[in-house]
């Protein structure tokens, strides 16, 4: 499965990972951190996962076969680390207390308040963002991963399949179920 370069970032990254690892970190760290944060909702845990991700990428750089893009390869590592972290956290009951209280809806105001919408429309959109966030948090692990990779990271189905190790049809199924659940939650708030 070979993915063409989809952005300027892909062309900047050299073929040999170890040669310019600093560039790799600078380009992809925000993306990996964002996915980990959206999945775990814990800044400390997201930071740990991000660091682990690049540590493993550095250690395994010799095994990168270029059968997928650099971004997809890193996201594959991140997805595995997030999954491991979720499993470990089941036994860390005190960890729930440290989950971040802030929500994307808090940041939504900046992008929504562009002056083009009425205050009522802005409030409604902010409410919908909060509802999607809440619904995404209640999704099963795989559905949530697929949902976030598609609608936050803007990855296509083949990239998601490569990053998660699922077949493309399975990704579609999870995405359909996730969207149905999120839409059902939104329908109730609209």
């Amino acid at each position, binding site marked *: 499965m070979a993915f063409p370069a989809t952005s300027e970032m892909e062309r900047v990254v050299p073929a040999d990972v170890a040669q310019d*690892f*600093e560039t790799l*970190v*600078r380009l992809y*760290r*925000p993306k990996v*951190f*964002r996915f980990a*944060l*959206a999945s775990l909702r814990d*800044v*400390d*845990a*997201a*930071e*740990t996962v*991000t*660091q*682990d991700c*690049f*540590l493993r990428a*550095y250690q395994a750089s010799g095994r990168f076969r270029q059968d997928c893009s650099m971004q997809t390869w890193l996201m594959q590592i991140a997805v595995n680390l997030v999954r491991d972290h979720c499993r470990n956290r089941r036994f*860390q009951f*005190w*960890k729930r207390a*440290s989950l*971040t209280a*802030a*929500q*994307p*809806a*808090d*940041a*939504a105001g*900046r*992008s*929504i308040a562009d002056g083009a919408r009425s205050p009522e429309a802005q409030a409604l*959109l902010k409410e*919908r*963002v909060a509802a*999607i*966030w809440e619904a995404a948090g209640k999704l099963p692990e795989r559905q949530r991963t697929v949902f976030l990779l598609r*609608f*936050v990271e*803007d990855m296509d189905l083949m990239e998601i399949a490569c990053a998660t190790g699922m077949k493309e049809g399975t990704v579609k199924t999870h995405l359909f179920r996730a969207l149905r659940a999120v*839409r059902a939650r*939104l*329908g*109730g708030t*609209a």
Partner: protein
Amino acid sequence: MRHLTSEEFREALGEFRCAVRAWSEDQAQGVIAIGSAVPQRRFWTASQQLALALVLAAVCILASFVVPRHTGDNAPANDAVLLNQVDVQVSRTAPSSLEPLMKLVVQE
């Protein structure tokens, strides 16, 4: 209660994407050091440190009950001095108060 149209749902998802990205940048500001090279793993989070401290405290408390009280390193030496004193007292031919008289008897 009405259902969203596809257009509204698409718009909400787009706004969700923007909001998560902005929120993530906010959260990362205090965490990410721009330009850091090879990442350094952080081994202990705050909760792990707290858990480790609690475990160590519990081990110390248990150890204070389980491990027997130590009597001191110089105990055998003290015992030897005491036995020596007893030996000296027992081996005397006369009590210490009568020892001057014993000397006179020997001289005569």
